């Protein structure tokens, strides 16, 4: 399952990331924020006005906002 499909509130482990699907700077920024293979994440909030973008993730004790396109590059396994 990719991260964009993870139901809100479910905790999951990032198992693989397709970095080639992302712009280099964005990949670097996601890594800097701790979004990398092995990170435990959960979707805290998703979408505004009924849309599916953007997504707020909890990573450790941080909350990180990103877009669905980024989340789609990440494979997760529900915990």
């Amino acid at each position, binding site marked *: 399952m990719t991260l964009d499909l993870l139901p809100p509130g479910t905790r999951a482990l990032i198992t693989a990331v397709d970095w080639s699907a992302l712009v280099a700077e964005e990949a670097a920024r996601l890594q800097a*924020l701790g979004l990398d293979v092995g990170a435990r994440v959960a979707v*805290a*909030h998703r*979408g*505004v006005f009924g*849309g599916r*973008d953007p997504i707020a993730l909890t*990573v450790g004790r*941080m909350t990180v*906002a990103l877009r669905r396109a980024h989340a789609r590059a990440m494979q997760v396994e529900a915990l």
Partner: protein
Amino acid sequence: MAELRTAALVGNPNAGKSALFNALTGARQKIANYPGVTVERKAGRLTLPSGEAIELTDLPGSYGLNATSPDEEVTRRVILGELPGEPAPQVLVVVLDASNLEQHLVFAQEVIALGRPTVVALNMVDLAERDGLVIDPAALADALGVPVIPTVAVRRRGLDELAAAIAVAEDRPAEHHRPHTTLTERRLTAHAIAEGAIVSETARHRMHAKLDRLFLHPWLGPLILFALLFVVFQAVFSWATPFADALEGGIGALSDLARAHLPEGLPRDLLTEGVLAGVGSVVVFLPQIVILFFFILAMEASGYMARAAFLMDRLMAGVGLSGRSFIPLLSSFACAIPGIMATRSITDSKDRLTTILIAPLMTCSARLPVYAVIIAAFIPNRAVLPGVGLQGLVLLGLYVFGIVAAMLVALVLRRSVTKGAASGFIMELPKYQMPRLGDLALGLWQRAWVFLRRAGTIIFIVTVALWILLNFPRAGEGENQVDASIAGKIANGLAVVVEPIGFNRDIALSLIPAMAAREVAVSSLATSYAVGADDEEEQAAELGERLKADWSLPTALAFLAWFVFAPQCMSTIAVTRRETNGWKWPIVMLLYLFGLAYVFAGLTYWGAVALGL
């Protein structure tokens, strides 16, 4: 080590660096730019236990030494001593958020590995304890090999201990002077160190998760944001009125005093018509600027601003931008200069350029004097609905006009000159925090000072220069002074160009000095009407009354439309040149904005004439 003179704070964004910096240095801060770049350099004096003072700088927040934004680039170059004209700080103070230890230790390791004298400030330990985290500073110090001082910047805890540690910080053997670990290695180490230093971790009751459920709610969240923005703009206009009236009264009283006590003649006229009428008409807008910045600073300090960016991302994505552009654009409502400088946090260069180019379309506070004077003179003060006045509605309309124009321009730019891959939105949402009043007051004072300094320098010089051009050569018998003056002759030439869009000679005259700053248009009108006045009574008449007598309604409306677009601000052009490293983009900005200003002023004028207004 040579005598200790400099130290710098480094750390991740949202580590509480700025609050710690304020707490350590107090109100006496020096804000300038780093040599050659427009990244803000904040410096202050830190008193060591010995009584000696050193210079402490607050480096831009960074996630690592591999920079991905201009801000981070400056941090990296200063730390490594690679920025010409900026010697590397002698002691590095790494600021860590205690409740986000694992994440912040990743960058900390990189800095510590440089082998330079380093001290760690374990900041916000109170918030960590609130979250059920207890950390052992000694264990952390052992693991990192540098002193660790727990601090709570907002409560002034641990500051003396930190200053003492900075005073005795020593060189350590460098680990090859540049870190050779990979990000993954540092992350694993960070996890291990955090694990070892955390004494206990109970169930976290996280207040901010609850607040986020409300503020990031897909429907309630945007509603709250729009309600908040409505309150902000309402406050800017209603709260400021008594203060603005008081300032205006004070300036009027000074002017009367000068008229009563100084002998008649050119020096007195220079003081009353030039300095007081000109600079005074701008200074009265200080209360509005302070109120707008109060809300912006409070939203930033509380952590809400990042939520606003989250909520706005969807809308911004519609025109090819991201939620990140919301913060610079909101700041641009106060002033485009801090707005354009705030675009440095946007990683995508095309995104950043687009945001810079549309920032001047946000109605900045310098346009308020222009709008306020014209609206007060030409728009009847009557209620359209209970509690909703026509004047306020017109003002709101001008703001909306600017926003809509900005969005359309962004849409066009993203499909033409700044075409590129759709930009992303990646942003840390910081913890909610109660803003400290002292920090807010300090921020407000710094902004107010910048505004007053502008009024005292650029606006003062331009107003006085205009007064001189308006007064020489002196008019002969039966001749109007403005017609006879140098300025009048220049304006006659320009008037030919602007007459087709309904502007008269007085407007042409005010547009020239207003190239320096938009609000000068008001002071120039005030000065030229004061100089052109035939007698004392007319001279003392309010600017609004004079405008009403001399201008038609279509002209006034065209003047408003002009200022929605016209890029009449030298500082904005200068900051755009610096931020984009060249003249290309400021020239693009000037051309497209003047073009739109001319077209829309003309459309407004001829539309209003056709409607018989």
